[in-house]
């Protein structure tokens, strides 16, 4: 009886030591899998916005992801209120302009070119002015709002800061923060 209680104590003491060790080891393992500081630091891209042409999609790169830049033509801005979301059945009026970034006098769509469904790259079709994702058939309009599911939301807008005619991706400017607060992007 006395022996077994001493063994019991030793078992518990070992359990406590091993438990602390296991938690520490799991924490170290979790941190080892984290993205490296160098990976996180290499996360800024600067775009010169004066170089883009209307209704011509340019794909830039930021944090290894494709970034869509689409300068809106006057025609695209005019038709914006007529776009109808297939998900809500309502016009996307009002939402549209909020998704665009105004630099100088021009409006730009700048978004992460990965389908919000499962991360394929949608293709842009200048004739119909929309994006089609070949993987599962999702469609977006010319401001990257969802026209046809399965995507659950429009293409995400990367953190940006306006700097004259330049746009810095990876930094959060006041315009981006406002988009985030109003739920325009995640």
């Amino acid at each position, binding site marked *: 009886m006395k022996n077994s209680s001493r063994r019991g104590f030793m078992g518990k003491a070992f359990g406590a030591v091993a438990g602390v060790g296991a938690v520490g080891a799991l924490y170290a393992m979790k941190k080892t899998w984290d*993205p*490296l500081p160098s990976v996180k630091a290499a996360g800024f891209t600067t775009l010169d916005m004066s170089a883009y042409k209307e209704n011509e999609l340019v794909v830039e790169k930021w944090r290894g992801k494709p970034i869509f830049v689409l300068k809106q033509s006057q025609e695209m801005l005019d038709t914006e209120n007529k776009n109808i979301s297939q998900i809500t059945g309502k016009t996307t009026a009002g939402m549209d302009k909020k998704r665009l970034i105004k630099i100088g006098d021009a409006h730009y769509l700048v978004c992460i070119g990965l389908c919000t469904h499962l*991360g394929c790259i949608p293709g842009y079709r200048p004739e119909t002015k929309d994006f089609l994702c070949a993987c599962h058939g999702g469609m977006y309009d010319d401001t990257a709002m969802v026209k046809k599911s*399965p995507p659950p939301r429009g293409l995400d807008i990367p953190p940006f800061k306006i700097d004259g005619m330049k746009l810095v991706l990876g930094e959060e400017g006041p315009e981006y923060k406002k988009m985030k607060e109003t739920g325009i992007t995640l």
Partner: protein
Amino acid sequence: MAHFTKATSVKDWLNQRLAVEKVEKVMMSEYWIPKNINFLWAMGMILVVTFALLLVSGIFLLMYYQPNVNLAFDSVNYTIMSEVDFGWLWRHVHGVAASVVFLIIYIHMFTGIYYGSYKKGREMIWISGMLLFVAFSAEAFSGYMLPWGQMSYWAGMVITNLFSGGSLHADGLVEWIRGDYVPAQAFLNRFFMLHVLLIPLAIIGLIGLHFGALRIPHVNNQDGEEIDFDAEAKKYLAGDKAGSKVIRFANDFMAKDMMVVGVYLVFFFYLVFYNYGFAMDPVNFDPANGLKTPTHIYPEWYFLWSYEILRPFSTNIGLIAFAFAQVIFFALPFLDKSPNTVPASRRGLFKYWFWAMLIDMIILTAMGKVPPVEPFGTIGFYAALTFIGLWIALPFITKMEKKV
């Protein structure tokens, strides 16, 4: 203390130290297998042989493969395929075996379902087998990343994105799994580690568990008959080999088993030498490019059925349906409420359930391969609903089953 005497032979020397005779009896000559079985009972041995082929070919590939985003593609497609003598052989054996192993796993699984080999004490065989299926799936997926072609990259992108959990937006978790914002060097390195060390270790451990789970309930037979293995073994050892319902595992049962393995190996090496193309996706012969999605992304054929359950729904429902499909097979022994352990053909409604499930999974597989256009989208949608419906119906139809 154990007493050792001067050995009379090498065997006696080993016997005193390792009890080799006893081990031989337990593992082979007195491990009893029912006589009433057919060639479908050889699938386990075929899987063991295929796993060995994967292991050996993998070891040779490992000597030249470079887990580096700049070198990986060329180390496979140039170094191994053109420079290394017989490098093509190891790659084609590895690729073909990775594909064929799933065909055999599915046959093995459906054999178990048909004959009720997951019931009455055999539940752990089924569960350990399903764990092996999951481990093999992870092994296949991680291996698919390594050549770092377009399909590697985009399959890696899409599958890791599943972990964001749809509307949960666990993007931090996805980045943690990848070690980067997108699949890159950290991603390739860790999946290389998983593929060559951690998952193979888990598989070997699980194979041990799977075999161990078989010891007490023993192998099932064609009629699901409950055999008294001790009595039948006694009969066999007393000389009544014809009257006994069992035979020795080795060499008796193994002799037939290896015959089936021989036929399989002829088929296997026919594929390796003359028809390996099915295991080598042409899209994966383009190097990985993070700025260009292939026009049509699809997994290897063995994942198509579960992929098709994901695809026709909106993101969240799709993910839930997909998660359901991944785990529901584990629950089979507990959802089957019938007391009968007999072939499906004698089990009334379950017979139709079995064939409906098999055909539905073949339809899902076919629909997963074609692009997401009509009418395939609709067929896939109803096939996915049928899959879920069949599982919901299973406890009810098996409960109604009469005792045979």
